[in-house]
């Protein structure tokens, strides 16, 4: 028995080997480098400093940095708002697409469109849509009678937040929908049949069969959406540049790394993002862990 177990372990590592090699070769160096730089004072415009090792100074500086705090707060708000809405919209869409109706194939293809437009283009498109003079958003709301005049949505704090959330949900709800649909497809049909025989109505079937069966898929999809939402960059950068309190923490890291050429501090902010996301992942891991690694 023991040798059988040993062989299984060996096989497992062999099967993971190609993936692990790629990850080690490509991903580990950038990550280690970011950690390493975050422990240095390194401003590229000041090569005379010799880029000294400063220990955790960059990290203690972050705690006194009100702008870093504000960007983290915004990022949390943005992440929660978008992920919750994407879950609702994506789940609903997946349930619909799992039903049989005419034109289902086309609907499936259609909902992927937002995901398929390059973010750099779709962010510009949404900026255009929110324009106060010729934007589609104003036009639609005006025609529906919801507003009495065109508004500059990106000029106020509340408007900016709403605009970003809508654009992000539009773009990424399809991702959620497709994955949840894949989860729904994995549920064997006879489970529902036997539930019907037992006299369960469709709501009961949903709660008793569908939810538990797609739970882990939904959680994994949520996990990846959360990771991405927390690192949001392109959308905010193109649509607002961080105006009206919409500076995400990735945008702030970018400002230090690439604008101020402050690689030390910028790397520290990057590591901070990593730590936050890691923490969030651990929470998810608690609920998915036993499903995945049993």
């Amino acid at each position: 028995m023991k040798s059988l177990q040993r062989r299984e372990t060996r096989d497992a590592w062999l099967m993971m080997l190609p993936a692990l090699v790629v990850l080690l070769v490509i991903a580990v160096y950038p990550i280690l480098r970011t950690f390493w730089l975050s422990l240095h004072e390194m401003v590229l415009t000041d090569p005379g400093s010799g880029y000294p090792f400063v220990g955790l100074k960059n990290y203690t500086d972050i705690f006194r940095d009100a702008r870093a705090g504000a960007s983290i707060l915004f990022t949390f708000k943005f992440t929660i708002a978008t992920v919750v809405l994407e879950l609702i919209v994506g789940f609903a869409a997946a349930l619909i697409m799992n039903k049989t109706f005419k034109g289902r194939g086309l609907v499936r293809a259609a909902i992927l469109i937002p995901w398929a437009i390059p973010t750099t283009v779709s962010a510009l498109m949404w900026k255009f849509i929110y324009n106060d003079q010729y934007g589609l958003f104003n036009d639609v709301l005006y025609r529906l009678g919801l507003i009495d005049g065109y508004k500059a949505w990106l000029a106020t704090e509340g408007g900016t937040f709403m605009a970003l959330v809508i654009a992000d949900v539009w773009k990424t709800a399809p991702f959620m929908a497709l994955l949840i649909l894949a989860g729904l497809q994995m549920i064997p049909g006879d489970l529902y049949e036997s539930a019907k025989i037992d006299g369960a109505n469709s709501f009961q079937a949903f709660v008793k069969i569908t939810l538990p069966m797609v739970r882990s898929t939904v959680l994994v999809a949520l996990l990846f959406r959360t990771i991405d939402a927390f690192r949001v960059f392109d959308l905010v950068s193109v649509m607002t540049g961080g105006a009206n309190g919409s500076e995400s923490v990735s945008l702030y890291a970018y400002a230090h790394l690439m604008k101020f050429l402050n690689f030390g501090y910028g790397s520290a902010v990057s590591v901070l993002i990593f730590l936050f996301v890691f923490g969030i992942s651990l929470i998810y891991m608690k609920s998915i862990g036993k499903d995945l690694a049993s």
Partner: protein
Amino acid sequence: MKLFKAKKIWMPLIAASLVLSLTACGGNSTQSGAEAPDTDEPVTITFSFDQGIGQPAQTLIDEYNASQEKYIVESKILPQDANVVHDDFVNKLASGDTSVDVMALDVVYVAEFASAGWLTDLTQYFDQATQDLYLPGTIETATYNEKLVAFPWFTNASALFYRKDVLEQLGVEPPTTYQGWMDLQSQVQGVNDVQYTSVFQAALSEALVCNWVEYVANNGGEILDANGNPVVNTENNIEATQIMLDLVKNYAPEGVTTYNEPESEQVFLDGKALFIRDWSGFWSQANKEGSKVKDKVGVTSLPVGPKGTESHSTLGGLNLVINNAIDDAHKEAAIDFIKYLSSESVQKKMNLIAAQPPVLKSVYQDAEVLEANPFYADFYDIIMNGKARPMSPQYARVSDSIQRNIHAALAENIDIKTALDTIQSDIEALNK
């Protein structure tokens, strides 16, 4: 499909690059084994610039390649986005990369790149007499620590474009003060469909800095004094910013705090605004075939505030710089190419095909150039009076502070005094 070109073994290299990454940023990177070329073989250099001037630049490169046999210039075109261009150059230069020899760099980044040790000193190749032939403001943007680390290619200055037809109908001359333009508001509403008195760029971006610096300069204020110390929160500057806020709130479209150049131009081109503050190149765009405002546009210098005596506009434009990590043979080729781009005939040609203001003074007297740009007679004074944005290796931080605080003040999230005090203390902290 040829997927792999790797000749070397991976792991040692990664270890080596880990070390290299920390040292290569120091600036004095070693030559990557570039061998001295044979004397007969032409030297090939790479010129990187953005799509903003993509077509015209390519034309000039082609002509250069055809005109001589010693050097060949290849182009690497980047998207027209100042941040993308900046970041691309930084990634290359910080890693000691030699794949790019000459770069067209926005004037505001010259000091930053020079202080990082990335730029070749050009002082010995352009003597004082040569430098004197060029616009002094542009030479100033190419100089860092009294060394010429770049050479001007073309410049840019803003002006006020207004609706000639509307003013003629009202029978008034273009005002010279902000108050003068504001006073017209009650009369212009609805004349030839005009809805807004003004439109300009007040989104959170570099364009906002260019705009704000003009209000400051045109109200007799400054950002830095002669010694480089910040003088931001002065009475003059508070008043200047108040004028800007007033325009945003009462004389411009509601969305003006979200406008960069394209959005603001759209409002003017659609015939909805009395005036727009924009770069000189807007002239040809406004008078293009099919434009609603074709032949209805006048140009004048920017208005002044109550404490201002002279009108100043912000200087923009691109400078040519040489990667300091390349070998001497490539540097020699690069200098020959820069001399070509700054020569009189090419400066003139660049203006005629690209409508970019030249940096060589004599071109402004050229009959053909004046014919193509009828407003250049006045524009020359605007350019000579132009103000560079504060020169600093830390310009990115100065700009960032101005953008965030002024934008917050224009959105009325903070008051003007607080905004200027914060900028003042931000710059003071940088100068320490």
